């Protein structure tokens, strides 16, 4: 350790490890993981989301799961909630679509209109 800057570099790298436990959250992504969701491929969708977050080193993003919400034909269903903005629900989210949603909505705040099934 030669300087405060050296310490800051380690801190920046390490912060991703503890932030999840500190309640820091800018965007929440909820993936439907009911039996219907899993059957429709939600596991692969979730994996793609995780991968994209990792590749882009996104911070303060929380990924959680939910059960069936009664729209089984639209699974896999993914909600994106940016702090202070309405919840956007996307349907039939394939891994590819999931990557687009991250790039456009999560990172840049641009809702991907043609995948949306509800807004509230």
């Amino acid at each position, binding site marked *: *350790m030669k300087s405060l800057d050296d310490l800051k570099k380690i801190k920046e790298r390490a912060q991703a490890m*503890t932030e999840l436990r500190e309640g820091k959250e800018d965007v929440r992504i909820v993936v439907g993981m009911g039996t219907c969701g899993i059957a429709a491929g939600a596991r692969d969708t979730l994996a793609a989301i995780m991968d994209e977050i990792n590749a882009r080193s996104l911070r303060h993003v929380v990924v959680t799961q939910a059960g069936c919400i009664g729209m089984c034909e639209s699974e896999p269903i993914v909600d994106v909630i940016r702090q202070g903005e309405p919840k956007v629900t996307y349907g039939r989210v394939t891994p590819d679509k999931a990557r687009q949603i991250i790039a456009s909505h999560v990172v840049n705040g641009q809702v991907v209109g043609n995948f949306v099934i509800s807004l509230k």
Partner: protein
Amino acid sequence: MEFYRSHVLVCGGSPCVAAGCRAVRVEIERLVREQGLDREVRVVETGCLGPCDQGPIVVVYPEGTVYHRVNMGAAREIVAEHLVKGRPVTRLQYAGELPSVSTADDKRTDYFQIQKRIVLENVGLIDPESIEEYIARDGYLALGTALTNLRPADVIETVKRSGLRGRGGAAFPSGAKLEFTARTESDQKYIICNADEGEPGTFKDRLILEGDPHKVIEGMIIMGYAVGATHGYIYIRGEYYISIERIERAIRQARWLGLLGANLFGSGFNFDIEVKKGAGAYVCGEETALIESIEGKRGIPRRKPPYPGTSGLWGKPTVVNNVETIANIPPIILNGADWYRGFGTSTSPGTKVFTLTGNVNNRGLIEVPMGITLREVIYGIGGGIPDGRSFKMAQTGGTAGGCLAEAHLDMPMDYESMQSAGSALGSGALLIIDDSHCIVDVACSLLHFFAHESCGQCTPCREGTTRLVQIFDKLRQFRATQADLDLAMELATVMLRSSLCALGQSVVVPLGTIMQHFEGEIQAHLHGKCSVGLCHGACDCAEGRPAENV
């Protein structure tokens, strides 16, 4: 750094380890791998989460869901339901709240706002075996700031202004202690962290070291810089296996990152730390006996003065501080003295860590602002007295602390109020006793402890503790007279005045408070009455032998 959508924290404090948390963690790890979730879910063994008799405790983030008494079956259910399907298992959830758990949608009740975590800010939240997680939470930033921007005198000034006082029992002002040693000229000085923690019922230092070892290391280095010491010792109870393992690992990690060793932060300041294991004698927690023990001699107290601050280890100026005192140093340096004075009372600033034990519903590790009342601790955090019984007494500060009665429930817990009630905040044990216990029995047990732990070097303590045991065993057998009780108080007073160390000197604290606050019950024993029905004519002392032969 890999992103995980979920973190599963399994308590790894000693009480939870005893409850089987290690096996639970291994099982959760195995199931997570089996479900193919090991790149999504991170399993972490963390420090004590607080409610020690609810273990094993598991917390799942980002939800902050707390599960308690998790066994193998529960572990399987949590993985299958919560981690795979995102459905928290309500049935297994802990109804209480944990001060370390905060989530984005925090709706905590006021009860838990009374806990304030400074010393324990990372305990139960980080992986104590990861220096990176400590650094992520601003670890070593106080040290870096001190070494690059502050002079040693500035560090001492900040500690002085913070009003921090020793948390090991004697409550000596910590800034003044640093100043004495800083001012003493010497080619070599030492910093000693007192982690002997011999006070029965106290295990806070153990859980601080287990849960956040780097905070203690960082505090010691800052203190070394302040007084000009380059070497530190951590004197730790030998049976604190997990603490020893974690602190030794933390020292290796700090050396590896250049946070211990030569030329720290390019400042030219060097510091290193060594761990010394104690063999479990209560008196070795006394600072000069501790120093003798490190020097390889028999652990008996030295005559004072000189005090360690001017002549301590190997005759060199030495600062000895308690684990909790040291753990307060990094936050004080980082946030400033005014910030620290914002907690607690004006004369007793900051927080105090307690181990809440005995007859309360929620036992465990707590940190509260100074000045909180006993009632808030017992009925708020502690959840009251179990089994429909009522409060009888609280002993604050361990065996050497005072015994308080119902009249003291609304007294603020700070140094001054405690002293005015004849007690002391002490080291941090808070023993709650309900009305099924007899005060004479409590006194006997305390006195037996002192007699057992007296090192035998000075006569007042060696003989005094033995005689006190005899008198109180007699009282328990309804054979004592008022003259015996008067003699007991006289003995305790002589011990206060003439014992070589605070072991003998402090027997008067529990004894005096018992005699004063529970006078009626003591008197009844002179007349063959024990209101609880515990004492009777025959001898039932711990050793099981007639009192005269003790």
